[in-house]
C-alpha cells in the first residue's frame, strides 16, 4: 500500500515546493509511481514551474466535486525519463480561482477533506500509486491541515530563522502531535553545512529543539537560486550535491515504508 506525504512548513519561503517537486521526481526515478499535488491554493506554483499550460481540469475542480481525480492528473513521466511514473495535479493559479478557494466555508473544507481521503482508495489502492506528495500552504491554513490530516507522513521544511524555529516547534506540539502524525524535519538553507562537525552540530540542535527525527539538511545552494525555478534539479543536475541529499531522503522514506514498525496512522 502506498503512502501520502505532506510537505508543510510554518513560514513561507522555506523550500516546500522545491522539496516537493524534487522529492516526487527522485521517487519516480527510483521506480516508484508518484503523483505530486499542488494544495497551495493561495499561491499555486506547480502550474508555472512545470509549465502545464492551460489544462481543462485543476485540483480545485476535484475538490469542488466537479470532476474525478483522473481528469486532473497530468503525466509528467517523460520529464524525468521514467515511463508512467510521475503525475502532477496542479492548482489553478488564476486570481479568480485563488479568490474562490479563499472564500470556502467549513462545510466545503469538510467535504474537501473527504475528497483528499478518498485519494487513498482511488489512487493508492485502485491505481497502484506508491506515493502521493502534497505541496501545501505554509502555516495553519484549512487546505494544509486537510493535507496533514490525510497524510501518513508529514515532512516539515524549516530554516534556522528564529521565528521559523519557534513557530515550527509550536506547530509540532499543537498540530502534528494532536493528529498523531509521523513527522520528519528537513532543515533547509543551512549556511556552512559542509563540514562533518557542522553537520553533527545541526543534527543535535534539531533533535533537541524539535524532538522529532531529522530527514535531511540542505545547505544554502546559490545554484538553486540561479536556476530561478526553471529546472528539476534531481533530473537536470544529477551530480549536484542537492540531488544526492534528495536521493538519501528518498531512500530513507522508502525504508520507512518497508519497516512495519513505522506503519503510521493514516488519516482522518
Amino acid at each position, binding site marked *: 500500500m502506498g503512502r501520502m506525504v505532506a510537505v508543510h512548513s510554518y513560514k513561507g519561503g522555506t523550500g516546500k515546493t522545491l522539496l516537493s517537486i524534487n522529492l516526487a521526481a527522485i521517487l519516480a526515478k527510483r521506480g516508484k509511481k508518484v503523483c505530486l499535488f499542488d494544495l497551495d491554493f493561495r499561491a499555486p506554483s506547480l502550474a508555472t514551474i512545470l509549465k502545464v499550460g492551460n489544462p481543462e481540469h485543476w485540483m480545485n475542480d476535484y475538490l469542488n466535486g466537479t470532476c474525478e481525480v483522473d481528469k486532473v492528473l497530468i503525466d509528467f513521466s517523460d520529464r524525468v525519463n521514467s515511463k508512467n511514473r510521475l503525475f502532477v495535479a496542479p492548482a489553478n493559479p488564476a486570481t479568480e480561482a485563488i479568490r474562490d478557494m479563499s472564500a470556502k466555508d*467549513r*462545510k466545503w*473544507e*469538510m*467535504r474537501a*477533506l*473527504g475528497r483528499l*481521503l478518498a485519494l487513498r482508495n482511488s489512487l493508492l489502492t485502485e491505481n497502484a500509486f506508491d506515493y502521493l506528495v502534497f505541496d501545501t500552504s505554509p502555516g495553519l491554513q*484549512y487546505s494544509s*491541515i*486537510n493535507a496533514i*490530516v490525510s497524510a501518513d507522513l508529514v515532512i516539515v521544511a524549516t530554516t534556522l530563522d528564529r521565528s521559523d524555529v519557534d513557530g515550527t516547534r509550536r506547530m509540532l506540539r499543537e*498540530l502534528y502531535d*494532536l*493528529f*498523531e502524525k509521523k513527522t520528519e524535519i528537513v532543515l533547509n538553507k543551512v549556511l556552512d553545512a559542509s563540514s562533518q562537525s557542522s553537520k553533527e552540530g545541526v543534527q543535535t540542535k534539531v533533535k533537541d529543539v524539535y524532538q522529532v527525527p531529522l530527514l535531511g539538511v540542505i545547505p544554502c545552494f546559490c545554484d538553486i537560486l540561479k536556476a530561478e525555478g526553471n529546472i528539476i534539479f534531481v533530473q537536470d543536475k544529477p551530480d549536484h550535491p542537492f540531488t544526492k541529499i534528495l536521493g538519501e531522503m528518498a531512500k530513507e522514506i522508502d525504508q520507512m515504508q518497508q519497516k512495519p514498525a513505522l506503519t503510521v*496512522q*493514516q*488519516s*482522518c
Partner: protein
Amino acid sequence: MEKKAVAAQDLSGKKPVLILEKIKENLERLNEKIEVMIELQKHGRKDLEQTIADAPLDVMTLLSMPDHLRKTAMAVCRLGRATADEIAQQTHRARAVESAYVNQLVIMGHMKKERKGRKAYFYVDRESQE
C-alpha cells in the same frame, strides 16, 4: 393437542434462538446507552454544550476536540465506516470505551449511526451537510 405440538416445534426450532438474539440485541443497545451516559457524566456534558443537529467535522473542529474524542473521530475518518469494534482495533482502546465516545460524537452531530442487523455502523456524513 395441536397447540402443544406447535409449541414443541417452536422450542426445538428457530424461534427460541431468534428470541435470544433479540434479547441480546436489546441488551447491547441498552449497554451502549449506559456507556454513553457514563461518559457524559464523566466529562460533565461540557462536550455537548455546542450540540447542533449536523455539526461539520472539519479539521478545525477536530483540533478543538478533547483528545479522547479526536482519537475516535480520526479512526472513523480513517476507516470511512466502522463499528465500535473496528474503531477499538485502530485505537487500541476497549470496545466499550469506543462505543461510548463514538456515540457521544453522534449526539454532538459530528457523526451518523446506521444499524444493519445487529451491527451499528458509524460514519461522517460529508455529502448531506450542505
